[in-house]
């Protein structure tokens, strides 16, 4: 096989096992858990609970020993590709190396087992970590206050828009519209709807950035805010940000910054210094907390002073104890707050990981991280410019967006390119996003890929471009080296099978 794919990442083939689902296997009575003796007098549930409320054992549950369960999940893991497996250039998703020390920190017993309702004096360590992380994020973003409550970027957006709504409502009119550039993530318009706003799309200009004139044209007294991703999803800096902020502020509207791409700026520039009023950050992007196959993330929101009264409750406040020592408290008494967004305080496990990395990096490490991310993206761009169409010539920051325009002429799509890249042992880039680029191939190498790794990725993509010229039909069959080949998505949607059932 490796002869067919000379540009493969080393070791891109190996033994893979077939593994059935957990259910309908094993043997009655078999189990994989170690439970203590009750050690207390017998108590019959029927003495406490009416019989119609009690259930018996659940038919269909697995009946497996620990070794069987462990082998099952190890085999499943072998069908996955993670950032520890190889380069993962998913644009906008920022798949960078996840430090092992952060994993160790999150597993410290005093963090992993702390109960969220502990009396404040018994969880000072957790509260202090939250407070210190908030202060660090404020310094990095240039804002004065923050909340760590939101679970992910999309909930950070909701938090932000609900605060914007409360801010305007406090001035007598919550307003009706939120402006969203056409290059935005889908979460932006979806969140606007959830927050009770009409999302109004703004077309980007010819060089990929939002033009002040387009904002001015859409701007009226009904506009509550503009949501801007900066750098945007094309990897281009929105250079008119300050002018756009001034236009918005003149009409009493606010500028929200989607911080999905903060990793391009951290230590180099701060949204708070650009006229932005509030933003969310994705700890699972900029601060390398693991994506976990889809989460959990963490989406803190940082705000300028006028928005601070509207932060969700509770906030973490630092006070002085009786002996003059620092004491951290949860402040629920905030009358203008938008209220609560989570069962408890936020994704604390992610706070620990991000905080650990900020401490390991230090100020210079944060700046160097942004520099190397931009260096790698520009190097990749240089290596691929001859093979793929570059729809926007403007300077790239942390990511670069190509398109399948040249390959399309040979009947090869961005999807084909992505699937063939899998055969070469790499995770594909983000495809068909941003929507402003037809057939987009959005590449973000991140700072944790070595130059050789960037070169290997570029060599594979270059080989695919050549294959598209020479033998385009072969690409439609890719991938060929994975545990499954292209899957039938139409069937999955038309005849949904969303769970195992006995007897199938």
């Amino acid at each position, binding site marked *: 096989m490796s002869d067919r794919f000379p540009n493969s990442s080393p070791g891109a083939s190996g033994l893979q096992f077939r593994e059935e689902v957990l259910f309908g296997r094993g043997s009655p009575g078999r189990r994989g*858990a170690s*439970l203590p003796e*009750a050690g207390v*007098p017998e*108590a019959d549930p029927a003495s406490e*609970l009416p019989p*119609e409320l009690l*259930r018996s054992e*659940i*038919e269909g*549950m697995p009946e497996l020993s620990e070794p069987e*369960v*462990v082998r099952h999940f190890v085999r*499943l893991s072998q*069908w996955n590709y*993670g*950032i520890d497996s190889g380069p993962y250039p998913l644009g906008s998703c920022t*798949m960078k190396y*996840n430090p092992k020390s952060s994993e160790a920190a999150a597993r410290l017993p005093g963090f992993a*087992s702390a*109960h969220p309702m*502990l009396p404040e004096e018994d*969880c*000072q*360590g957790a509260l202090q970590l939250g407070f210190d992380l908030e202060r660090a994020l404020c310094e990095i973003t240039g804002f004065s206050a923050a909340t760590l409550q939101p*679970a*992910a970027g999309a909930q950070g957006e909701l938090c932000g828009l*609900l605060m914007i709504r409360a801010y305007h409502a406090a001035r007598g009119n919550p307003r009706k519209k939120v402006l969203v550039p056409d290059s935005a*993530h*889908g979460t932006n318009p*979806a969140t*606007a709807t*959830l927050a*009770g706003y009409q999302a109004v799309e703004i077309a980007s200009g010819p060089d990929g950035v939002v033009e002040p004139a387009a904002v001015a044209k859409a701007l009226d007294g009904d506009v509550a805010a503009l949501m801007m991703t900066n750098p945007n999803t094309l990897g281009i800096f929105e250079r008119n940000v300050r002018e756009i902020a001034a236009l918005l502020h003149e009409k009493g509207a606010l500028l929200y910054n989607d911080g999905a791409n903060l990793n391009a*700026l951290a*230590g180099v520039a701060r949204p708070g210094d650009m006229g932005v009023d509030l933003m969310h950050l994705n700890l699972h992007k900029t601060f390398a907390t693991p994506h976990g*196959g*889809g*989460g959990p993330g963490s989406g803190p929101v940082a705000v300028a002073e006028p928005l601070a009264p509207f932060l969700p409750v509770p906030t973490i406040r630092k006070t002085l104890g009786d002996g003059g020592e620092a004491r951290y408290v949860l402040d629920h008494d905030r009358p203008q707050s938008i*209220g609560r967004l989570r*069962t*408890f305080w936020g994704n*604390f*496990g992610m706070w*620990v990981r991000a*905080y650990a990395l900020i401490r*390991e*990096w*230090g*100020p210079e*490490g944060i700046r*160097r991280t942004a520099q190397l991310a931009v260096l790698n993206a520009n190097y990749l761009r240089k290596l691929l410019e001859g093979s793929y169409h570059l729809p926007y010539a403007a*300077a790239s920051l942390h990511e670069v967006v190509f398109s399948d325009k040249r390959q399309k002429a040979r009947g090869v799509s961005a999807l084909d390119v992505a699937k063939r890249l899998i055969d070469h042992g790499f995770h594909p880039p983000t495809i068909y996003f941003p929507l402003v680029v037809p057939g987009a191939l959005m590449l973000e190498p991140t*700072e*944790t890929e070595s*130059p050789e790794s960037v070169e290997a990725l570029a060599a594979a993509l270059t080989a695919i471009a050549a294959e598209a010229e020479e033998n385009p039909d072969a690409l439609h069959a890719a991938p060929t080296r994975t*545990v499954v080949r292209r*899957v*039938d998505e139409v069937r999955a949607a038309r005849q949904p099978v*969303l769970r195992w059932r006995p007897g199938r």
Partner: protein
Amino acid sequence: MRYHPHTDADVRRLLSAIGAPSLDLLFDSIPAPLRLERPLRLPPPIDEHALLDQLGALAEKNRAVPPERVFLGAGAYPHHVPSAVDQLLLRSEFYTAYTPYQPELAQGTLQAIFEYQTLVCLLTGLDVSNASMYDGATACAEAALLALRLRRGRRKVVLSRALHPSYRDVVRSYLAASGAEVVLVSFDPKTGRTDPDALARAIDGQTAIVLLGSPNFLGVVEDVRKAADAAHAADALLGVAVTEALSLGLLQPPGALGADLAFGELGSFGNGTTFGGPGVGFFAAREAHLRQLPGRLCGETVDADGRRAYVLTLSTREQHIRRQAATSNICTNHALCALASTIHLALLGKAGLRELALLNFRRAAYARSVLGRRRFAGPVFNEFAIEADAAALARARKAGFVAGLPLGRYYPELDGCSLVCVTELHDRVRIDALAEALRS
């Protein structure tokens, strides 16, 4: 910096290939006045040992009372996490992977989600489950939003006052812009159950959904069947929040009692309490509501060779396709925490799940018998309210126990009462010592 592969020589080589004179000039597209011209004011970098040493000291500040002496639940239930769970979570093919948008490279994550969805259906007695949500409170808010979409034109959401206070608060936050009215229904001060007469009075032709917890925040198991009948009589939905998912190993599931939606927190399986997050929000529904579900769904299909395969499906509901018309704005969910629950449930299996649930029930029953002063007569699982005032809690704390959660803050009329949770972490010796501390 060990996470940066680039040496100075590498940087020079790449800069020269790009044709850029310096790293700083790579940021030329950022207007100079917008750039930060000073170092960030943050502590200097530290090495790994110093990091873990300092964080270890901070973590220890949360361990003045070890978990075995903390009798707190209230939405986050302390349970033993088997070693096998964490060993498997540390398979970095799982934890360093992205959302499975490329199914050929993510069959492991996808099959695990399919298994998770199946387990949630088995536990709740409902037909379909999504791939997870942030937590129980946001799942509860999504249930309210689903009902308002499904019963378009109706403007009322009825909440039991005995539903977890945070769940109620998050519903209010999420509905702030919807124009929907939130109506609270009181609980019976004797039983701790949602007052059935008040509930019947609150439901009318404007009601989209009734939301209650079972066991509720007071630990009391609700009469879900009766609430379902009341909701359905007005063509409203019934949504049941389950904050302690282990109770589903012993109690009839919401789906078997007439609930249309079941949601809540699955963190009891495989996830530590981690100061409240991340846990697992679960969300299950009847087949008829499938197209209104929030969040991701994994489905079984076949690949080009006809082999069984899994893929994210029905994504035309979701924000990345439908944008402003999506059923929810959720993108990232709590996949890894859901995997932890899946592994723990697989280990427990049919017999282990029931035995663990029974064990919790028995330990709690014993605790009730020795702690005394039970506040509500309604049936309970592993959590219950007792009469124990601030002075009693302070005595217990002096003896090294966190005896429970004072309820006065959430319900002024329950000032002097505490919510006590007993799980397999709390053995007889500790329960007896707690009883002694509360008494003396």
